[in-house]
């Protein structure tokens, strides 16, 4: 049976992408270097949601703690940082990704646990329960397609989509060449396309 999702319908519980600081970043950075609490609050609000989202999508055991520790490590070294908002974000994601790798190694020593790229939210928002139930099924089917990607492909697509990092920034985070990143994202997207076609889910 073919299922169809309404691509224009958004779950009202969906996360909102935190806003970058933009032109105010330089001011915030300068204040953060002096230890201004408000500046660190601003930095955290602007980026932490994406870091937590990326770590959670990649199966980190405690994404909030890992995110906070990454920021604290940055805070200790902030006086030596010179750069723009993009390079600051890249720095945090490099640290967060390293902790993710550590987490995976620790997890490999524990009994195997099932891990999904993302667990869809289960409660319907309200309104037409039947329509929402169908949409929920379609969402589950679509997101299951990510399970067929390799770990490297999911890492790269997670950083490109959830963290909104550029090609070069993603390459820096995972420590691979730009060419390798291109290959990983291409193969990942090809696999997604094939799986969606074969499962009969139309978009």
């Amino acid at each position: 049976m073919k299922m169809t999702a309404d691509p224009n319908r958004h779950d009202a519980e969906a996360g909102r992408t935190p806003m970058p600081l933009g032109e105010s970043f330089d001011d915030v950075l300068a204040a953060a270097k002096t230890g201004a609490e408000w500046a660190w609050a601003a930095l955290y609000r602007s980026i932490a949601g994406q870091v937590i989202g990326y770590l959670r999508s990649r199966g980190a055991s405690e994404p909030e703690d890992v995110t906070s520790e990454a920021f604290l490590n940055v805070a200790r070294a902030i006086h030596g940082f010179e750069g723009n908002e993009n390079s600051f974000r890249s720095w945090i994601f490099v640290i967060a990704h390293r902790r993710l790798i550590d987490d995976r190694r620790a997890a490999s020593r524990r009994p195997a646990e099932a891990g999904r790229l993302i667990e869809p939210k289960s409660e319907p928002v309200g309104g037409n329960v039947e329509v929402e139930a169908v949409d929920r099924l379609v969402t589950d089917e679509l997101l299951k397609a990510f399970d067929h990607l390799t770990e490297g492909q999911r890492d790269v697509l997670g950083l490109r989509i959830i963290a909104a990092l550029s090609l070069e920034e993603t390459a820096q985070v995972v420590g691979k060449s730009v060419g390798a990143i291109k290959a990983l994202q291409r193969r990942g997207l090809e696999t997604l396309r094939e799986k969606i076609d074969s499962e009969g889910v139309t978009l």
Partner: protein
Amino acid sequence: MAENRFSDRDIEQLLSALVPENEELAALAPILRMLKDQSIREVSEDEVAVFAPQAAQAARWTISTASKPDQKATVSTSRRRLLRPRLAMALASVVLLSGMTGVAFASNGAAPGDPLYGLDRALERIGIGDGAGAERIAEAQALFQEGLVAEAMAHAAGAVAETEDASLLADGSGAAEALRDAAEAITSIDQGEADEVRAKVAEMLNWMADNAVSEEPLTGRDFGEMVAGFAKGISTKDDPEEGDAAQETEGTTGRPEGVPGGPPQGVPQGPPANVPPRP
């Protein structure tokens, strides 16, 4: 060579939230948007309220120690302890529910078996904080003196990891990971091996402490390789597969060049320009 199904250009347009010309690829846009929407969340103001003071204090402490490069690493009993976020939230909830003070919590906190138990009880007794670099190594030595060998190793691993994070080192040595492996291995050693392991850990910590205050300390790859060598000698486990961890550090070239910043008029100034670099 087989032609790629999707061009780089179309892929970049898709991942930049634009509409690619390739219809098959364009059809993936809703699922990518769904992945993003399902993953990202806003952090709560409670979380910000816990994090911001800790980060601000960490930044201020870094500035104050950077201005005193000759200050040797010592255990400071007067610094307020920086709590790990998970412990900070747990502390807040215990105090809220029980009305106990932080001091009371220290004696009524995590139970034996809790991964934080030994480490945090030791930190409470010693009265030291969560510093970076040389002070963290001193803290590891203090833990070791308390007999908490595995915790000392884990603390040292944290110090190495922080050093790497601060400079985005591409050391490829896996030093922090080796230390963590050793910390885990120590928890399962036989009694007969305990003295030998303790001696090796003491040797490593002493070297790290001496290096931290040396006039010409080893840094970067050299430092990492030395520590990794010590740690691998302590661990009884096989070296983990290099895999992604080696690739993630290999080729990392340091923070990217960006626009040099400088606060405009009226904005709180940063640290003095002539602050000497930390050892």
